């Protein structure tokens, strides 16, 4: 065939279109700078920005699993909040067992206690995700309405199970010694725990990006999001991939639950369903199935919620919904819509 006159050619994407594609990346710095201009005081702005980024990171941790599950498996999981709540309660129990470590002045022991709580929460919620996928989700693949109904049912069952195991009252959870208090930089007070949340969220985002871009399992997930049937025709068992992704998504929600619980310092059986409103907003803003979009969406929601709470507390109640409306008017399928072959 080499002697056939076929001249390879590829369409060049115009610069304007390239910039348009990259535009969402600039939204976070633009919002942060707008916040600085509106707030005026750099110290208050720094405190609010770190708080906003920390909140965004925690929402991202909870939302990332949901968006990948939707993108790959086409499953709308309204029960995702159950994993957040269960994760928080498991984390609480582990931290209560390790009270000696959390009360110790040693930073290492404090962090070790949090790490063990996170790992235990991720393990339990990952296993819960396994059961959830097999029992609740598997029979309703491809049927969105049924998915919404049965996963909602799963959420209610999980909340009732929390009542059975941990009782109906809200529980108070204290951060370990080393994570209490703030660093003071100039006039700005930055809570230590928020920095930890930012670090964990950022590490998770980079790890997810690396896995999705550089590993074969990541390639399979991205390919499966676009055309699951073709992935099967290439010889891969996509059901197994579904299960791995669902368990990972559930475990991430569990991680988010521990982080959110330590942030709020109060946990309830309903905390998962309450935070799900924000999580869904972030997933929709980002573009269903997109991890990058979800990350940017979470940062925008976190920053905007904090800035408006400071500037105009009443507006804060609708700020995230307003953000979603504006983004969807600009990009109706979210910031980074995921291409579906079907």
């Amino acid at each position, binding site marked *: 065939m080499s002697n056939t006159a076929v001249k390879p050619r590829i369409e060049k994407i115009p610069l304007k279109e390239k910039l348009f594609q990259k535009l969402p990346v600039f939204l976070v710095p633009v919002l942060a700078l707008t916040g600085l201009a509106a707030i005026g005081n750099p110290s208050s702005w720094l405190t609010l920005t770190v708080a906003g980024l920390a909140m965004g990171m925690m929402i991202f941790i909870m939302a990332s699993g949901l968006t990948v599950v939707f993108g790959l498996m086409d499953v709308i999981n309204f029960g995702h909040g159950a994993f957040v709540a269960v994760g928080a309660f498991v984390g609480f129990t582990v931290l209560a067992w390790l009270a000696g470590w959390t009360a110790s002045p040693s930073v290492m022991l404090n962090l070790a206690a949090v790490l063990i709580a996170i790992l235990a929460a991720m393990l339990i919620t990952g296993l819960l995700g396994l059961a959830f996928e097999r029992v609740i989700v598997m029979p309703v693949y491809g049927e969105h309405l049924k998915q919404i109904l049965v996963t909602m049912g799963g959420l209610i069952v999980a909340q009732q199970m929390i009542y059975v195991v941990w009782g109906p009252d809200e529980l108070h959870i204290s951060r370990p010694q080393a994570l209490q208090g703030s660093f003071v930089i100039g006039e700005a007070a930055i809570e230590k725990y928020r920095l930890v949340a930012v670090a964990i969220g950022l590490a998770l985002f980079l790890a997810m990006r690396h896995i999705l871009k550089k590993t074969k399992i990541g390639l399979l997930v991205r390919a499966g999001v676009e055309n699951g049937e073709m992935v*099967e025709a*290439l010889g891969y068992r996509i059901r197994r991939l579904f299960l791995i992704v669902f368990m990972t998504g559930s475990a991430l929600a569990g991680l988010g639950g521990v982080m959110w619980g330590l942030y709020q310092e109060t946990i309830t059986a309903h905390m998962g369903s309450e935070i799900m409103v924000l999580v869904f907003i972030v997933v929709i803003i980002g573009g269903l199935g997109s991890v990058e979009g979800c990350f940017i969406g979470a940062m925008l929601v976190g920053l905007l919620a904090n800035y408006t709470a400071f500037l105009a507390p009443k507006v804060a109640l609708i700020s995230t919904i307003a953000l979603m409306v504006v983004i969807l008017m600009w990009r109706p399928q979210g910031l980074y819509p995921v291409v579906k072959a079907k």
Partner: protein
Amino acid sequence: MMAEALLTLSGVHTHIGPYHILQGVDLVVPEGGVTVLLGRNGAGKTTTLRTIMGLWNASKGDIRFDDHLITRLATPEISRRGIALVPEDMGIFTDLTVAENMILAAASGPLDAKRLEWIKELFPPIGTFWNSSAGTLSGGQKQMLSVARAIIEPRRLILIDEPTKGLAPAIIKAMTDALRELKETDTTILLVEQNFAMASGIGDTVAVMDDGRIIHSGSMKELAGDAALQEKLMGLSLEAHQ
């Protein structure tokens, strides 16, 4: 001399929702060479390929590959037995690069460098656009990538669904040359094609479908040389396609 059957469909029926698409397909694909599946739109050609691949389940009948029953096997198992599919829509992962598409297609291990070189010779755009996003390729390049993916590992049978559909004549010639070269590597090809000139050029055996059944099967030479038979089977003469 007739080669031994590699794939045999016996009385295969396929239902898609309320529609009864395949209504007892009997088809034999001999080992080695190219078998062409012809027929008008809606005759059931694509459904036949998808049923063989397990993407749609046969509701009745048997599919045997290399003397083993594969009717009830899941698609990945069928693929692992050495059957590859080049679907009509090409099934390219547009979010991935050309390289990533090829890496995924090599399901049993890393890319074989020697084989990859051969493929790049067969389809030069694969090498040229190795690190480009597959979504930016032209239609012809995507089709080449789709076939390249199917042959990145040695396969016993390749199911190809209308590889020349909507392509420019130069690309059709390139594709035909590549399939001819592939044929020489002892790979068996089951080709669905509407372009009779192309199909008759590379086909060894032919089966014609209509209304979900095989209405004729035999050698391509015989059909290509018999305008009256073409007229009868497809309502179109060979000349009309040239």
